[in-house]
């Protein structure tokens, strides 16, 4: 079996039969991707600067990126598609909102409580849907999203359908960071999470989780328990997704039950597909592209969602590796070309 460095592509022909392992090139690839990601993030932050409009775009992109990264963990690793991410993002957002408006506790606590609650909810939901896969899981998680939205719209402490607003400013032990600093922190947060998720994917744990989708018996035989692994993946994904909700709510100062809609969740699935499922960096890249298409093309009065949907179809049919996948392949082809010409001398 050959050792190749390309990441697992969702639609790549060999995905299902050969988990691909790498030794030296894997480290390089992971670090290479991380380097590109960090550079891209720095460039984006520089481009955003102090321009208010671009700052708003970045917040949206960061929110989408985090939700997409959260969905990526169980989706690509464990092969289970959960649509409950609207609920997890709402949990993160409402945690921040409730702490801010209903208690006197420090705001940053909301950022910790939200992910914990989301993880617990994800584990409970995961246990209830353990035996489901594919369409059934999608349907149940969709219904769960609607039930959660209904609950939040009817509960008295969440402000009902009107939601919550007018938060206290974020204050970390007395220091109130300015909006510009928070924007920078957004970039850092997304980069860190993408990095961590990619490391997880390439780590021994990630390999085992990916393996359990294809050869559960082998994984069980090696001592790891498949159900526990899936639940852990779900919990991590939910926690990351809820960070996206917390981010958006914090930066916009308001949340309603309809803030994190089902449409957003579907967009979040499409982001890794557009950006490339081979690496977790595809999710933030896809988020940037989607934000560009849905928020930043004033010439089109029609919804950017149409472009995204059509784009996803085109990508799935024609370029299944996504943008980063193709860049990665292109890089390798160039390297090969160079090597070949070198060899011929």
């Amino acid at each position, binding site marked *: 079996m050959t050792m190749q460095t390309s990441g697992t592509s969702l639609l790549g022909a060999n995905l299902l039969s050969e988990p691909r392992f790498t030794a030296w090139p894997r480290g390089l690839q992971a670090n290479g991707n991380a380097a590109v990601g960090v550079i891209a993030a720095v460039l984006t932050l520089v481009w955003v600067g102090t321009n208010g*409009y671009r700052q708003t775009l970045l917040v949206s992109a960061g929110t989408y990126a985090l939700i997409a990264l959260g969905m990526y963990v169980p989706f690509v690793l464990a092969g289970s598609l959960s649509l409950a991410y609207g609920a997890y993002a709402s949990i993160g957002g409402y945690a921040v909102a409730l702490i801010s408006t209903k208690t006197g506790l420090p705001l940053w606590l909301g950022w910790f409580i939200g992910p914990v609650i989301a993880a617990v909810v994800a584990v409970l939901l995961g246990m209830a849907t353990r035996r489901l896969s594919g369409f059934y899981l999608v349907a149940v998680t969709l219904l769960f999203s609607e039930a959660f939205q209904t609950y939040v719209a009817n509960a008295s402490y969440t402000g009902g*359908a009107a939601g919550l607003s007018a938060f206290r400013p974020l204050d970390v032990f007395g220091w109130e960071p300015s909006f510009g600093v928070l924007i920078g922190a957004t970039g850092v947060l997304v980069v860190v999470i993408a990095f961590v998720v990619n490391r997880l994917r390439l780590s021994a744990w990630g390999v085992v989780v990916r393996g359990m989708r294809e050869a559960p018996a082998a994984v069980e035989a090696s001592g790891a328990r498949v159900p526990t692994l899936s639940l852990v993946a779900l919990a991590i994904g939910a926690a990351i997704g809820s960070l996206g909700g917390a981010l958006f709510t914090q930066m916009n100062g308001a949340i309603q039950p309809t803030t994190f809609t089902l449409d957003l969740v579907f967009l979040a699935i499409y982001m890794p597909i557009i950006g490339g499922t081979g690496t977790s960096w595809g999710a933030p890249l896809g988020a940037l592209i989607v934000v560009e298409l849905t928020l930043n093309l*004033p010439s089109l009065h029609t919804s950017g969602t149409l472009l995204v949907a059509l784009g996803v179809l085109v990508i799935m049919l024609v370029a299944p590796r996504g*943008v980063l996948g193709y860049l990665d392949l292109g890089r390798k082809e160039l390297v090969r070309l160079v090597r070949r010409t070198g060899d011929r001398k």
Partner: protein
Amino acid sequence: MNGVNQSTRTRHGGTEERGDWVSINVMGRRKSKRVVRRAATVAGSIVAATALLATGTAMVAGAATGKTSKGSKSPIIVGEDWDSTSANAAFTDVTAKTIQLAVNQVNKSGGVLGHPIKLVIGNDESDPTKTPAVTQQLANEGAKFLLYNNGLPAPAKPTVQKLGIPSIGVTAVIPTFANPPDNTFTYLLSSPLSDWSQVLCGAWKKTGVKTVGVLRDNSTTTASLDNVLFPTLKKCVTLVDVETAPGTASDVTAQVARLKSHNPDAILVADLGGSFEILAQETVHQLMPTETRYSLATIVNEPTTWKLASPGSLTGVIAIGSLNPNNPQTKKLKSVLVANNGSSYAMTAFDAQAWDTIQLMKTAMAKAGGGNTTAKVNKQMQKISSYLASFGQPGYTLTYSAKKHAGANGLCGIVLQQFDSQNKPSKAYAKYQPPCKTK
């Protein structure tokens, strides 16, 4: 031979050599396939890189500000956040059309001190997560005045405050937009909700309604509206039951049946208008044909929605509206609208508010000596006094000040309109109208 070369390799070159070895020995076809695939991937990656580059450039270009033409006087850029793609299009489209008409009229008669007004359009799809971004986008395009033609302008307030651009919520009724905090630059035309409560309570007291059942949708706008309205309504009637149904519901029989079991004196329907309102009214009409029905919704101003209703199902519905055909300003505007849109044009309060918004903006800009100094324009907005509105009872005026950002003067901006047997709100409710102090 092949077996030997299938030893594992860890370097990039490994696969290629093995592939070549195999291809030389066995299948030339495999080699040509590899070449094709390689070419495709290189091409693909070039496309991908170009796409990335294009996206990056577009992001940069998208933020470019508008240019002014040389020669003629530079246009004053006015931004309009027009939600044309959500369910709110039922009323935003009408508003947008009349805004454009009003701007055209202003430009035809010389613009603001010679400067033409140029509208730039954004669309936040009434999504509170998009409103700040669209506001920023319009500001980036050079907008010096903002018009909010969507379901809920309030989410824009923090951004508007930061940018310091005078803004009007053209058709918004929830007072949040004009109230503190962050309201230095924000203004409303419509009567505040507290006025609505007074009018409804007046009508109910007059007609002996003591218990009311409410049927509403689950939208944020309706909920915010009800949060303001219900406490004051509860002071004059008992709200025996409040039923909520999803805005996209295709059936509300259960909710209406529950309301029926409480036997209220009147039913009040509260929603964003459109198909939900029709469904609600029809179901109430089916299950409680003799019940008195009130509507909080904008249905009175949505001619396209009236067609959705089956014949006679809206007859008798009493709705909060603001058009009295006897108001001379209303008549004046109606003739302009008919001249531009045909004699069968059904005028709505949205037309009136759109028209008045542009007139108010023009007045403030003209008094400030031009539209481009936003601080001066804002100050002049706050000096507008007794502007004769194109809606409301005859003699109704709007006044603004530093402390008063909602223009309504008294209750007579509101007209209780009643639907006739043709499902049209042609009558003014005979039993009660808000008392008006005409100047």
